[in-house]
């Protein structure tokens, strides 16, 4: 089965590309007269044969949004898979253990406080500030949850989930307080955070996301063997030459970085890190060597489908994407709970 990994990756990449092309065509605005090829050629040659509105919708609205769905979905799914490997439990996902809320709390703080200095700094730094704040929030909550729930490399799942509940409550209360304090413009931003949406996609954001994700993936995606070995227990993994402590630190920092950046740009999109590994486990067992790289692609597929549905199902308005992922994720959460009832 391990030898077929390149084939699986190839096939799912084809699915993703087909989906992305389909998604380009879907939406309120209709590209009636010209095919995408023609629009791209016109853009390349910089001629005026194509209406400006076509160009604008394609290049500045639809394409960045699709790219962002691919990036965010991928990052969230890989974060979830890595965390599940580290906590050795299929319930560990960024949102259930409170990391997403921790990140969005810090993002909210930086929106409300940052609005005072926002006019004086360029757009790029503004986004960076937001993602750095969200990263710090994610890192703090993850370290806290891990410290609380894990002793001697063994995680108490109930404590892990409950500390997630506690952090979510704490962050929820603080965000509520911030909403109460904030001005109208900030209020819109904050609501956007809590529901999650890819509507704010732009090429600047995609650029930052892409750099961070490429960096994190280059380190994490090859750690499948290590995560497999950690199922034996951390000491036994160490005897197999796996540098357990080093890998755990990397997972903590890099998933915090990815979750933080995703939250900063697209708000709290829940359950992606839970759904994707769950489906992959059904297909490939828990072999992280396979499900880690596959979750990078399946995460993109899931979020891109969800986002395409969210902006077409109730056109011309769109429903928040968090609602869709929660509809998929919550039943899966319950199924995993029922299955692992004995071992909890």
């Amino acid at each position, binding site marked *: 089965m*391990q*030898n077929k*990994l390149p084939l699986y990756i190839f096939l799912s990449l084809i699915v993703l590309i087909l989906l992305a092309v389909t998604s380009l065509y879907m939406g309120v605005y209709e590209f009636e007269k010209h095919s995408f090829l023609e629009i791209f050629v016109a853009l390349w040659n910089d001629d005026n044969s194509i209406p400006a509105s076509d160009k604008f919708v394609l290049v500045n609205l639809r394409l960045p949004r699709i790219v962002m769905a691919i990036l965010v979905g991928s990052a969230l799914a890989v974060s979830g898979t890595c965390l599940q490997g580290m906590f*050795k439990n299929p319930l560990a996902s960024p949102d259930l253990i409170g990391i997403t809320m921790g990140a969005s709390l810090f993002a909210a703080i930086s929106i409300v406080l940052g609005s005072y200095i926002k006019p004086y700094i360029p757009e790029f730094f503004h986004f960076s500030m937001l993602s750095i704040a969200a990263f710090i929030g994610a890192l703090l909550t993850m370290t806290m949850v891990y410290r609380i729930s894990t002793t001697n490399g063994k995680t108490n799942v109930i404590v892990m989930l409950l500390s997630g509940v506690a952090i979510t409550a704490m962050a929820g209360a603080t965000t509520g307080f911030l909403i109460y304090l904030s001005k109208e413009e900030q209020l819109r931003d904050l609501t956007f955070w809590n529901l999650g949406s890819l509507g704010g996609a732009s090429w600047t954001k995609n650029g930052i996301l892409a750099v961070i994700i490429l960096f994190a993936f280059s380190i994490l995606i*090859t750690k*499948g*063997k290590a995560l*497999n*070995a950690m*199922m*034996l*227990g951390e*000491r*036994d993994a*160490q*005897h*197999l*030459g*796996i*540098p357990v402590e080093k890998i755990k630190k990397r997972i903590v920092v890099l998933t915090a970085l990815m979750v933080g950046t995703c939250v900063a740009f697209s708000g709290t999109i829940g359950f992606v890190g839970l759904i994707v590994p769950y489906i992959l*486990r059904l297909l490939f*067992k*828990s*072999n992280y*060597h396979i499900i880690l790289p596959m979750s990078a692609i399946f995460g993109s597929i899931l979020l891109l489908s969800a986002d395409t549905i969210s902006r077409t199902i109730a056109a011309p308005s769109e429903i928040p994407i968090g609602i869709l992922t929660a509809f998929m994720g919550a039943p899966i959460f319950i199924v995993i709970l029922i299955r692992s009832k004995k*071992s909890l």
Partner: protein
Amino acid sequence: MLKACKISYSHKKISILENIDVTINYGELLVIVGPNGAGKSTLLSMLANEMAHTNEPILFKKKTFEDWDQKELPLHKAKFSQQNIADIPLTVMDVVLMGRYPYFNSIPHQSDVDAALKSMAETDVVALKSRDYNTLSGGERQRVHLARVLTQLENDVENKLVFMDEPLNNLDVLHQHRILHTVKNFSERGNTAVVVLHDLNLAAQFADSIVLMQKGKIISHDKPEHVFTKEIISKVYNFPCTICLNPVNQNPLIIFGT
């Protein structure tokens, strides 16, 4: 091979090991025995470099573990631990192949698969190859992990070292003997094995030397016939016993309760 001086360990102010000195030679099968709570597993963990300690360093092939190249070390030593029967949602083959992780990067070579199959044959789990690990019984799981540990040391390195913490738990008589024969074979090829056992008669039959522990101290470290005497054993285990010669193989035979 392995030299440790003045090992002490305490947990929450309760002393578990006190000033233990051990030297283990090349080609030796050393068995650690002792009543419950004697510190056998803790000593094994210490020797296998699982726990941080502040005492004098443990020397493995004249080098401290810190001086070893961490990629090289797994080819020289392996450890079988008492399993707390964690669920591993993989096939048996996948679990055994983990023992070959130090040898391949992403896809196992044919030599790795062969090595895994060879060790699986030794612990009699080849037939379970494509079963789900989670559907196995306790004894079968034990044998799968033994195969994994054995396959980790399946290489051309000379003088390897294996630690085994109660490898015979849950095993039937046939497999108990098979495993010990495999370990004995391993040590006769110039390798070293350090094994914690509960069955004194099996220890007497297979061990080159015995470490008898009680309350965190080594009471006796010697050949089986010197350690297994009526006085020492009945005193350490606090239970009357008789020791005679096993009529078949001339090893000490310990009969308790008489």
